[in-house]
């Protein structure tokens, strides 16, 4: 195991975060603060409680997930796409590192960053609304698993993308809609029965539901299923990455 290489990649990626502090930390926090002001303070005060939780508190887990998914994907995808774009990936490919080590470095850094952002959002939320976390250990578990899984997913997108548009298209066209329709802002029980069934095909529903359960003990779907879904998706991403490195797809000829 080339631990020095893992550390080098991790430090390099985290340094990138440091260089782009405004874009990578300030911007997601500002966006979330705006959500809290609009949906929490302004609109939320006119909404009824959901399952005994005030609307502003209800949306916190969903908002965190929204940022977590978006940030994990964009960090990890950009992290591996940029060296391909500039040509510096020659160094990664010619170094005595295994695919596994490269993934740990990039995905680890991307996940670290999105967990940090998630926690910062939680702190920011404190200024606007009250909330409690009933299952803190599960909350952290969900946070870590989701960050890791979606960082891996982002890594795959970054490997697959061969232009900047492709880098944006999956987060924008798929992940954002799935999150908005995945119960970030509502309980799926509020949907008509037909759409309640349809929405169960949206994997993000399970993430948000499980995450919200760790906060308030209420869930749209069984928590066990939520965890199982994350693990399944994680395995899918892992095998995707394994396949990519084995075949050298988009990396080498």
């Amino acid at each position, binding site marked *: 195991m*080339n631990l*020095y290489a893992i550390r080098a990649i991790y430090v*390099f990626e985290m340094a990138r975060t440091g260089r782009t502090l405004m874009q990578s930390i300030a911007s997601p926090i500002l966006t979330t603060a705006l959500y809290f002001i609009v949906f929490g303070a302004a609109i939320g005060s006119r909404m009824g409680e959901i399952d005994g939780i005030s609307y502003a508190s209800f949306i916190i887990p969903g908002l965190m997930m929204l940022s977590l998914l978006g940030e994990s994907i964009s960090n990890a995808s950009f992290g591996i796409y940029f060296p391909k774009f*500039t040509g510096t990936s*020659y*160094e*990664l*490919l*010619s170094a005595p*590192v295994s695919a596994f080590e490269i993934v740990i470095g990039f995905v680890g850094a991307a996940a670290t960053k999105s967990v940090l952002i998630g926690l910062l959002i939680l702190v920011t939320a404190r200024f606007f609304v009250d909330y409690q976390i009933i299952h803190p250990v599960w909350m952290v578990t969900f946070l870590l698993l989701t960050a890791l899984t979606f960082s891996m997913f982002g890594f795959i997108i970054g490997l697959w993308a061969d232009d900047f548009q492709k880098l944006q298209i999956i987060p924008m066209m798929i992940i954002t809609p799935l999150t908005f329709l995945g119960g970030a802002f509502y309980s799926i029980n509020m949907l008509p029965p037909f759409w309640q069934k349809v929405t169960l095909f949206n994997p993000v529903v399970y993430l948000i539901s499980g995450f919200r359960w760790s906060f308030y003990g209420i869930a749209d779907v069984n928590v066990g299923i939520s965890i199982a879904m994350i693990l399944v998706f994680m395995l899918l991403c892992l095998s995707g990455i394994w396949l990519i490195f084995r075949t050298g797809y988009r990396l080498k000829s």
Partner: protein
Amino acid sequence: MDPIISIRNVSKVFPSGLRALNDINLDIRRGEIFALLGPNGAGKTTLISTICGIVTASAGTITVDGHDIVSDYRAARSKIGLVPQELATAAFESVLPQMNFSRGLFGKPADAAHIEKVLRDLSLWDKRNAKIITLSGGMKRRVLIAKALSHEPEVLFLDEPTAGVDVELRHDMWQMVRELRERGVTIILTTHYIEEAEEMADRIGVINGGEIKVVEEKTVLMNKLGKKQLTLTLQQTLSQIPAGLANYPLELSPEGDVLIYTFDVQKEHTGIPELLRELGRHGIDFKDLHSSQSSLEEIFVSLVKESA
């Protein structure tokens, strides 16, 4: 002595069907400077990329210091430093963190003293905190070389190191390459500048169309293929070469004032004394004479033409 790099029957066919390397067999000796010459698209970069693990060979085996580059890639790759042809740099990073990054990537613990030495040798120490994007092209080239040397490689690949580099930096680099060789580093360079190979290399390989055409000691190559010419500037112009000199490979310039005699350096007898006596017998006086040997460039062009 066993070779540091051993390439056996290596071929590379790209998915497009392009056969970039065709059954390459080549040994690189420990501690030598090996120059790989060839026109654009000959396969130089593909060959280097294959050895370094960036391109996967379609067939054949390569070992670096006895380690197979596929089954034992960690040991093989950690001995290699690669300076790519393109100026691919992490533009927004500073020089020093990039050095530490490269060293770590190649599995070495941090070593501030070594990094400082490499940067000083390449006159980069003053720029250590500069963002790479702010550096000139020549400086970026130095950064790439410094990165390749950050992990103390035993083999250094320089892919067109002096392309687009000014004369001064080019001489600096030649100097650096010689110093590295004195420290026992094996150097493989590709170049378009034949004078560079002529100046630096111990051995020269010519590659064209994905095949190694010639591998030879530089001096042997130049002797073997080199032709010498004796140029005689005449006192009086001639309208034609006298019939008595027909046995000699002579050329008369269109103005009739210069005679060029081509001879092979390998032959024991150059034929020059006889020629000069013959000229005297025909009453041809000359006011100047000089001989010149064909350069590597001319040899190279003739080789590439031959194989085309």
